[in-house]
């Protein structure tokens, strides 16, 4: 995908009509297209160096808008049919790289001094041409300055290498003073993002890129093998050792979560390191103290900033839950478990690196309490609120420092990936404060939104029967506080960075819960990320905000069909018809009490007779036939729709899924491949691919596809379950543990996709 961005510039939503005029590369590409297939390979590596005046539009216009937002129609002058398109890209992939220096230099000349290095010689000079920034001040940036600046530039060059598809080389960097938490954060997010960026590349290439990046930043590529790291909480250590002593034979059971807990802790539990590195970068009198004075007059206003503590508590809660399922009575009684359990309830708080007992009533028999507790979970939220109030303002400042510092790294990533090109996040933040973007009101709003969302989550846990349909927000969201998370989310979605887009869009809907488009896009992102529950929850919110939105109604129909909820699915598909300007006259005169499948199917068949060239009608028909398991007709409908919309990747996936469910796995794989050619980081299609291979008994292949899908979205719980089954079927029980501990590094190493 990154390749296509390069030539097509699909990251912007620019005017498609200006395609060939303002983009010399586009012109060049067109000129070369029919002439020499060998020369095309190199085209991929040519960035759009067109300078633009807009600060955000770093790519030239979308010539072939492959990554258009679904549902937003735009003409695609380049798309004369799928065959040509894929041929074009295929020849890209296969052709020879050599003999392109001339072309390369040609392109460089009009825009600046000739590139000094050849590809692969020296990272900075080689990468710089890819930086299509307007200001060429940083043409050859020395890697010095503040650590922030160095890191920012370095990460930029990594991303740019991704766009160019050339190997990224490690570069010597000065000491950056990254804390473990920073590193963990960079490692995790860059790993997921690299999978999205290089979705069309081999696993080896991705790993090489990642290793080069992490190596330069002095980050170990793999921390999963680390055991329990002693020292930070003495108390925890003691309990841990005690529990291990009790539990020698069964110790391995706990290894998985201990690692997990350690990783979690590295993020949350090291305020000192945070503070130190922060001071090193910004001095003790940095902006934080200023900010404190101006903004922290009341602690309540900044409630929203306390996310990490909540997240840590939530993490402990999950941990305690998992532990409670361990039936070994010795383990159940161990102090370690009690400790974690207490922590999960907020009775113990991690305050300034010390574990303190909360002022709330201490536990007697923890197990009984836990039982009572899990029946009535809102109590932990109450406790937490109490706890929060009892904290003095000083603690708040500390916590806030910790928290803000954490966000800073994330923000940087945001900038990296959003091409905001803010040289120094602190400057930007200052600006925001200056502009009042973070004024007291908005802070209040954030705090309020956060409270609401916490209440919602707590409520959701209280009524597990109704939890379906309640949107579950991510714990740590770096985009909360972003100036325009919606725009950010759209951009990220277009680039196919689904998991990031989800975060940005979540930040938007927390701020602006009535934003239909944000909810809708969030729903689509979740569906493409293979999470129907969240997709439905988000789409329901979109539908609440705008009950007549056609795309939302159709998406809900599809998701409910996936979940086999016929009544619901019919309701939304019929709603689509009732709200469609062309077909609403077909709708039944009165809203019937209950919809019957045959009535709805008949109405849509009538609509198809009226407008045989409306792809959407055929899509809905295809979904309806899926609902009645009339797969042959469903396949015909989708195939008809594809004649009208050959570039709709989600449509190819619908066709594939239908074929797969009607025992035509081989055909399904071809359809999925079409979807992936159009959208390489379409997690659902990767997962579906795995299902189809598994259903044909080709477990080894299926494992590779599942692992690939999971690398792009480790939160895809279904895919983890599927992977487990394929591992068992392939007699790879040796990897089950890696699957259960969700050790993606190991799995990727073991099952690279060719």
């Amino acid at each position, binding site marked *: 995908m990154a390749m296509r961005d390069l030539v097509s510039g699909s990251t912007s939503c620019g005017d498609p009509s200006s395609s060939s005029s303002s983009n010399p590369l586009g012109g060049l590409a067109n000129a070369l297209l029919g002439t020499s297939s060998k020369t095309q390979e190199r085209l991929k590596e040519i960035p759009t160096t067109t300078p633009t005046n807009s600060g955000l539009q770093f790519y030239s216009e979308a010539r072939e808008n492959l990554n258009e937002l679904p549902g937003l129609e735009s003409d695609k002058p380049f798309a004369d049919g799928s065959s040509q398109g894929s041929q074009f890209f295929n020849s890209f992939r296969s052709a020879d790289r050599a003999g392109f220096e001339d072309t390369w230099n040609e392109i460089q000349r009009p825009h600046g001094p000739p590139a000094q290095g050849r590809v692969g010689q020296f990272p900075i000079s080689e990468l710089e041409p890819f930086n299509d920034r307007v200001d060429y001040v940083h043409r050859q940036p020395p890697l010095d300055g503040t650590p922030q600046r160095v890191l920012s530039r370095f990460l930029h060059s990594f991303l740019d290498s991704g766009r160019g598809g050339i190997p990224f080389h490690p570069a010597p960097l000065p000491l950056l003073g990254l804390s473990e938490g920073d590193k963990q954060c960079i490692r995790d997010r860059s790993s997921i993002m690299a999978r999205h960026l290089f979705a069309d590349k081999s696993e080896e290439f991705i790993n090489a890129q990642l290793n080069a990046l992490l190596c330069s930043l002095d980050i170990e590529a793999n921390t999963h093998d680390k055991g329990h790291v002693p020292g930070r909480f003495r108390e925890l250590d003691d309990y841990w050792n005690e529990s291990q002593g009790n539990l020698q034979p069964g110790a391995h059971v706990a290894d998985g979560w201990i690692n997990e807990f350690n990783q979690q802790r590295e993020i949350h539990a090291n305020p000192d390191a945070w503070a130190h590195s922060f001071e090193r970068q910004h001095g003790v009198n940095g902006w934080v103290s200023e900010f404190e004075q101006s903004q922290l007059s009341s602690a309540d206003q900044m409630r929203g900033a306390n996310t990490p503590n909540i997240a840590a508590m939530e993490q402990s809660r999950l941990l305690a839950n998992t532990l409670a399922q361990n039936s070994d009575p010795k383990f159940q009684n161990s102090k370690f478990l009690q400790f974690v359990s207490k922590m999960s309830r907020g009775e113990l708080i991690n305050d300034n690196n010390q574990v303190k007992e909360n002022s709330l009533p201490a536990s007697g028999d923890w197990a009984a309490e836990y039982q009572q507790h899990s029946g009535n979970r809102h109590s932990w939220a109450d406790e937490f609120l109490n706890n929060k109030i009892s904290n003095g303002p000083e603690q708040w400042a500390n916590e806030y420092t910790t928290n803000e510092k954490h966000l800073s790294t994330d923000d940087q990533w945001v900038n990296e990936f959003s091409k905001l090109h803010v040289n120094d996040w602190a400057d930007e933040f200052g600006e925001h404060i200056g502009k009042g973007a973070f004024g007291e009101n908005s802070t209040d709003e954030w705090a309020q939104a956060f409270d609401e969302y916490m209440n919602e989550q707590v409520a959701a846990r209280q009524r597990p029967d109704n939890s379906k349909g309640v949107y579950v927000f991510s714990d740590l969201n770096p985009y909360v506080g972003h100036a325009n998370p919606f725009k950010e989310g759209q951009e990220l979605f277009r680039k196919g960075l689904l998991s990031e887009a989800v975060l940005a869009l979540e930040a938007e809907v927390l701020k602006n819960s009535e934003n239909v488009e944000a909810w809708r896009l969030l729903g689509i992102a979740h569906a493409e990320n293979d999470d129907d529950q969240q997709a439905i929850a988000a789409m329901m919110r979109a539908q609440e905000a705008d009950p007549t939105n056609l795309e939302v109604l159709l998406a809900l129909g599809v998701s409910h069909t996936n979940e*086999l909820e016929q009544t619901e699915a019919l309701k939304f598909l019929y709603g689509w018809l009732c709200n469609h300007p062309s077909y609403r006259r077909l709708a039944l005169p009165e809203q019937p009490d209950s919809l019957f499948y045959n009535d709805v199917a008949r109405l849509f068949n009538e609509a198809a007779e009226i407008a045989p060239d409306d792809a959407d009608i055929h899509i809905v028909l295809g979904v309806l036939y899926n609902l009645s398991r009339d797969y042959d007709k469903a396949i015909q409908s989708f195939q008809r729709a594809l004649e009208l919309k050959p570039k709709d990747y989600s449509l190819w996936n619908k066709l594939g*899924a239908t074929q797969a*469910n009607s*025992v*035509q796995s*081989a055909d399904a794989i071809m359809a999925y491949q079409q979807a992936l050619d159009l959208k390489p980081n379409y997690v659902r299609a990767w997962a579906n691919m795995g299902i189809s291979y598994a259903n044909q008994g080709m477990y080894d292949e299926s494992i590779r596809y599942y692992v690939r899908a999971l690398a792009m979205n480790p939160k895809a719980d279904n895919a983890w379950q599927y992977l487990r089954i394929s591992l068992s079927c392939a007699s790879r029980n040796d990897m089950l543990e890696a699957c259960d501990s969700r050790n993606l590094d190991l799995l990727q190493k073991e099952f690279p996709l060719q």
Partner: protein
Amino acid sequence: MQGASSGIGYGLKYQARCISNVKADTDHTSFLAGTLSLKEENEVHLIRLSSSGNELFCEGLFSHPNEIWDLSSCPFDQRIFSTVYYSGESFGAAIWQIPELYGELNSPQLEKITSLDSHAGKIKCILWWPSGRHDKLISIDEENLYLWSLDISKKTAQVQSKDSAGMLHTLSGGAWDPHDVNSVAATCESSVQFWDIRTMKKTISIECAHVRNVDYNPMKEHIIVTAEHESGIHIWDLRKPKVPTQELPGHTHWTWTVKCNPEYDGMILSSGTDSTVNLWLASSSNDLLTSDRRADSPTCWVDPLLNTYSDYEDSIYGLAWSSREPWIFASLSYDGRVVVESVKPFISKM
């Protein structure tokens, strides 16, 4: 092939053969399981899947006087079910009701609505009217087929009509056609016999080798699936009863039970005495199998076996799909272990 142990387990105390989906419970995914212990007092467990879907818990536990050989939940009342049991020398059959406030009683007792007493032979199974509230029941013993009229409020059951299977046949079980409620299938050693219950006369029969179990495809009319003695599974179109439309290899030992998914056409579960449960996806669109398609593109022909669940230690006689969450099924092995699995991993999403 190793079975994935992703299932959720639940232990009955004793050996058991029978598990039934509680179709009338639309709020929960629930199953009823009955034990078959020679010495101990037998029990009926009302088992429920937690809303999170990762835990099975005992919603109710009731003692039952005899070994349970067949158990079937009433399709319109979740507290009513039927059992076929063995008492001393003879078989009996009864309709039971779970007490209303069973959760608040210390040792809730099942209430016997009525027993079906007219049987002379060894009773095999009781069939409820396929869907909705209805007073008709079918019971099958080795020699006869009975049609009953059940009055729950009066706690009576009257035989409406009966027919003999004939001297040469010993009936072993049956199924009620969900598409045509006048038609009932019953299995004997070497054929499946069909009755029209309006006339109580045999209509057609399918000759095949020793059938153990039969199930109708709830999604497609005229399609039945049979488990054959010689370990295979056959799919039949009743309009062409001479040869099966498809044969699946079944199990390495006897295939005991077959169950069609209530929603997914062609998704079939089978279990057997080889201690495995097999999940099949058999396309019932005949043209796909018989036409030249198969010859054209041999890669399109896929093994219909989706998965083998082998995490069992004994023969499996009990199988039940959930009607509420049709991607979930429960299996019961003879050692009394209930395992609930999800087939979602085999379903592609649009």
